[in-house]
């Protein structure tokens, strides 16, 4: 069974690298959204430093909503999802593998790009370290929780905007804790408590979300 799950992971990675445009577009979107803020709000370094963590996190959430929509869509359309269900593998395991692969291909580029974003928004080194820590802990949480709603909307023709409506309120606590961690870092205060809470939410999601995703996929497959 381990073998099968690894096979699914390998297949997903290969598909992702064949569709390079879809791999690159969300991260370009994120970069452009971040670019809008200095232009729209103010290019003053202090202002950017003040709003920077929030801007990066909001951009990450928005771009994750865009890229997440296709997490299960192709498998749903070409029938692979049905085959996974019939294969006798636990669907929650398949879902967890697919979510992890999705995290690798859509959020790892964000981590790579984050020094550039931090430079654009004039973050200090302390703030950047905190930002990276929140991104590492927080973005898998986005993937896990988001995948539940993706599973629910996968059968719908116009799922994209609906997905955002469903998920944005659910992501608010993560946004609050992540930006408050970076704000604390800016003031040279400890921010372990915020990280601990994000970590706790991540563990809760990682333990329970695969089952919820499997259930929602079954509902969608009817």
């Amino acid at each position, binding site marked *: 069974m381990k073998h099968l799950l690894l096979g699914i992971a390998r297949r997903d990675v290969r598909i992702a690298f064949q569709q390079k445009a879809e791999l690159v577009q969300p991260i370009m979107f994120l970069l452009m959204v971040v670019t809008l803020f200095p232009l729209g709000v103010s290019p003053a370094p202090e202002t950017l430093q003040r709003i920077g963590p929030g801007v990066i996190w909001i951009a990450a959430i928005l771009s994750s909503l865009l890229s997440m929509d296709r997490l299960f869509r192709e498998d749903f359309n070409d029938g692979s999802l049905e085959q996974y269900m019939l294969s006798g593998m636990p669907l929650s395991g398949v879902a967890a593998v697919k979510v992890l692969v999705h995290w690798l291909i859509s959020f790892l580029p964000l981590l790579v790009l984050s020094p550039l974003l931090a430079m654009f928004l004039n973050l200090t080194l302390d703030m950047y370290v905190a930002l990276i820590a929140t991104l590492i802990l927080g973005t898998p949480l986005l993937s896990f929780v988001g995948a539940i709603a993706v599973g629910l*909307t996968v059968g*719908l023709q116009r799922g994209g905007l609906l997905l955002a409506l469903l998920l944005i*309120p659910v992501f608010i606590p993560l946004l*609050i804790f992540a930006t408050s961690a970076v*704000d604390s870092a800016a003031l040279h205060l400890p921010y372990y408590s915020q990280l601990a809470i994000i970590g706790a939410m991540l563990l809760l999601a990682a333990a329970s979300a695969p089952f*919820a995703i499997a259930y929602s996929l079954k509902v969608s497959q009817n």
Partner: protein
Amino acid sequence: MWKWLHPYAKTENAYQLCLTLQPWLWGCALVCLIVGTVWGLAFAPQDYQQGDSFRIIYIHVPSAILSMSTYIAMAVAALVGMVWQWRTAYMAMIAMAPVGAVMTFIALFTGAAWGKPMWGAWWVWDARLTSELILLFLYIGVIALYGAFEDKQQGGKAAGIMALVGVVNIPIIHYSVEWWNTLHQGATISKFDSPSIAPEMLWPLLINLAGFAFFIAAVTTVRLRSEIVLREMHRPWVKRLADESGVA
């Protein structure tokens, strides 16, 4: 222990139950709302600080409390539907969703109307206001998800999952917002936080709270009945019902 509940999994029984409960619920709602509102608005003493404008509490607080209770009731219905595979439970959940959303809206609206004279602003990013707003978003998500499905049975299940995800999130949202607020603002605006409320002010409030609860239950039974009839249009008992009332 829960055996008495099981017959109501059948839509026909649930319909009949709604029909018998409905007049009682409407009656209680009407009595409580009239007594509570008239007492609260006309006879309860003035607040020494806020004068007459505190009287909006008799609408604001019941709607705010019940907006949260309704969401929890929705989540319970969704869980019941999931565990026992009851379609009626999902229908009840969907019947409650818009009612709860309207309650949330009333709470926000009356809160804004109260905030303007008291705090000098229609809206402040106070912790309670923010969590109430997010609650409204959660309601909208559930309603929108249900509306997006053509197959209403599937839609009910999907909306049920979303309601459960939301209910797990409500405490997290509540505490995160509270913490965020204290981090950002320091002292928040002190509102109606007298440690105890005078009994002659409290009684109408409690009566109105019961009135709102009965009102929500009554509207839910009406909505549940119409939901059942809509979804079970093809069943013989619905056809018979239509024949008897001379609709069809």
